[in-house]
């Protein structure tokens, strides 16, 4: 079984999907499903638990067909008892299995947070390394589709804050497959966040083209803790996670028309966080705008800025900016929701401010 490091990846252009006929251009959902399928095929320790996964394939189709292929006692439908089945997955992992849990919406961690942070995340530490908890919690994040405050959150910081959790979020199909392989093979508890808007799931409308790319048929891993530079630039660094990266790419296109060269950085992994990679980009551009669909305060955006200014506050030519959800719950009504999300228009405005362009006009 050959495994290779993530190959240098080129940003797909919009023409790539339209012009090139390839059945290997996949959505995030399909790509991560391939990794799950491969790992279940090759590793008898891997199994899945979740709601509506075995027959239905999961709300996002991640387990599509896996129940029939591997059996319903290996792709296990659970009752609506997240504390129960996440606790069970933890125990199974402690006994040598490699469970993959599907928790459809990250918002639901409210009902099982204790089993995640007080048990699963702390077992390796509290046991002094005697017991490992190698498992994956796969869950959907984000809003933008009028599903209101309880089905639209990202909760990046809520998870990344907790010691003992690796927290990752792929933004394209190639990364999704490689990161899913890496997550399942990791000896730790990995929270695998996929923004619903980026995942390519049917009910979210047209697929965002920058999430699609060519995915190798063989298995490979994309290691955690390395940023991906989607687009190189020289004037400002746009750091994002999840769907925000694609908003930033759109903003960068817009800014290019004004002659602003924006570098777009995808964190890919919140824990571990590639502070060196962020620093290298900001050192190059001298300006920083962080885009995060999570609540603004006490979050990833502040952490990114802190990791720059802790190292060298003189690197910034202008104050850093944050484009996040302004510490309110996600509203239902479309104009209200669009107002609070970090959409491209807000990113463009933030960059203009950082560049001093708002004062010039």
């Amino acid at each position: 079984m050959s495994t290779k490091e993530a190959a240098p990846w080129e940003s797909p252009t919009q023409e790539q999907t339209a012009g090139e006929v390839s059945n290997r251009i996949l959505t995030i959902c399909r790509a991560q499903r391939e990794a799950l399928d491969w790992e279940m095929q090759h590793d008898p320790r891997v199994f899945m638990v979740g709601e509506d996964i075995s027959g239905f394939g999961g709300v996002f189709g991640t387990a599509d067909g896996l129940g029939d292929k591997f059996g319903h006692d290996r792709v296990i439908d659970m009752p609506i008892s997240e504390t129960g089945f996440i606790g069970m997955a933890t125990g199974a992992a402690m006994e040598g299995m490699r469970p993959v849990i599907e928790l459809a919406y990250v918002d639901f961690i409210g009902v099982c947070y204790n089993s995640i942070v007080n048990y699963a995340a702390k077992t390796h530490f509290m046991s002094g390394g005697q017991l490992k908890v190698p498992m994956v919690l796969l869950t959907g994040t984000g809003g933008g589709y009028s599903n209101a405050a309880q089905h639209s959150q990202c909760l990046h910081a809520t998870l990344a804050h907790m010691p003992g959790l690796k927290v990752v979020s792929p933004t394209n199909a190639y990364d999704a497959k490689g990161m899913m392989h890496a997550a399942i093979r990791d000896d730790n508890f990995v929270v695998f966040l996929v923004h619903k808007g980026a995942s390519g799931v049917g009910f979210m409308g047209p697929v965002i083209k920058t999430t699609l790319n060519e995915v190798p048929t063989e298995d490979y891993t994309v290691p955690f803790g390395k940023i991906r530079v989607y687009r190189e630039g020289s004037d400002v660094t746009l750091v994002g996670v999840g769907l925000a990266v694609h908003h930033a790419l759109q903003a960068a296109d817009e800014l290019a028309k004004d002659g602003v060269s924006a570098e777009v950085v995808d964190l890919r992994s919140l824990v571990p966080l590639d502070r060196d990679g962020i620093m290298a980009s900001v050192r190059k551009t001298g300006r920083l705008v962080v885009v995060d669909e999570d609540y603004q305060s006490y979050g990833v955006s502040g952490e990114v800025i802190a990791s720059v200014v802790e190292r060298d506050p003189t690197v910034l030519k202008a104050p850093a900016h944050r484009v996040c959800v302004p510490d309110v719950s996600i509203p239902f009504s479309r104009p209200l929701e669009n107002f609070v999300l970090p959409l491209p228009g807000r990113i463009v405005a933030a960059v203009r401010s950082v560049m001093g362009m708002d004062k010039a006009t």
Partner: protein
Amino acid sequence: MYEVMVRSRAFDDRLTEKYWVEKKPIFSFSAGPLPGELHTSHGQEPIGAGVCGALTPDDMITTGHRPHHVAVARGVNLKEMTAEIFGKKTGLSGGRGGHMHIYDKRVNFSSSGIIGEGLGPAAGMALARRMQKRPGVALSFIGEGGVNQGAFHEVMNIVGIMKLPFICVIEDNKYAVTTHKSASTATERNSDRAACYGMTGEFVSGNDPDLIFAATERALERARSGKGGTILEIETARLLGHFMGDPAGYITGERKAYQVDPIPEYRRRLILEGVLTDVQAIALETQVIREVDEAMQFAAESPYPDPESALNCTFSDQQDMSKPFLETELF
């Protein structure tokens, strides 16, 4: 089983002595050689001895914030557990866990300080063994107060659906910290709840290790023969407060009279029945106290961990990612 009960009691007695060092006249959790909260098992020893006496090495245990009697009975390494409780480098977890968080993988033992949270992991261990086609029944110990956690309902229902080899041991000492069972629990017997979950309910009163042993054997037999899980409710005693330093002034009158020390009772009976002579009992007690003292001495003489070791063990050091899985002996 008498020996196990005495060992557990001697262990808790010694810990209690050490606990009060430097905590008088001004009580502070953080003071002295044994800091933190301490929940001893005085009165609950028959459960550890009776249940664990019936187990095989394959069986698995998760328990809660009051773990000593179960840990001692399960054969958790006494010296390393003592060192852990004193926060020493030689402790089971190098001082990261403390008395509520006792882990000894060698005997399939884990404990957690959050009420009810050991239930899911135990059921998952049972599921893992089934998938691995390996023997082993999982047991989770919980108090009568913990039964009111949502986790109990969720996990028991799943155990019932999947007919897992699982035993939920309810240690009913009548008090959830200060709240009496009559104020916390709508049903008289928690084992009656088994009917809702497709499990078998067993109720054992009298805090008698022989009856507990027999009930555990029945539950194990059901679990091993595919007949599913058991809710094993055991009435026991809590002779002291919830934690050391709690004078338990709220336990009065009849309710105080209920809390009978099971060890002298059992000793009397064994001698009466001719199982044990007084001389044998004294020899056994002396031997057990010596073992416990050796463990205390081991802990006292052990160094504290390097402070920087606090930074280790949050994550497992990574294996070789290129291997999708290790050739495992599990299957």
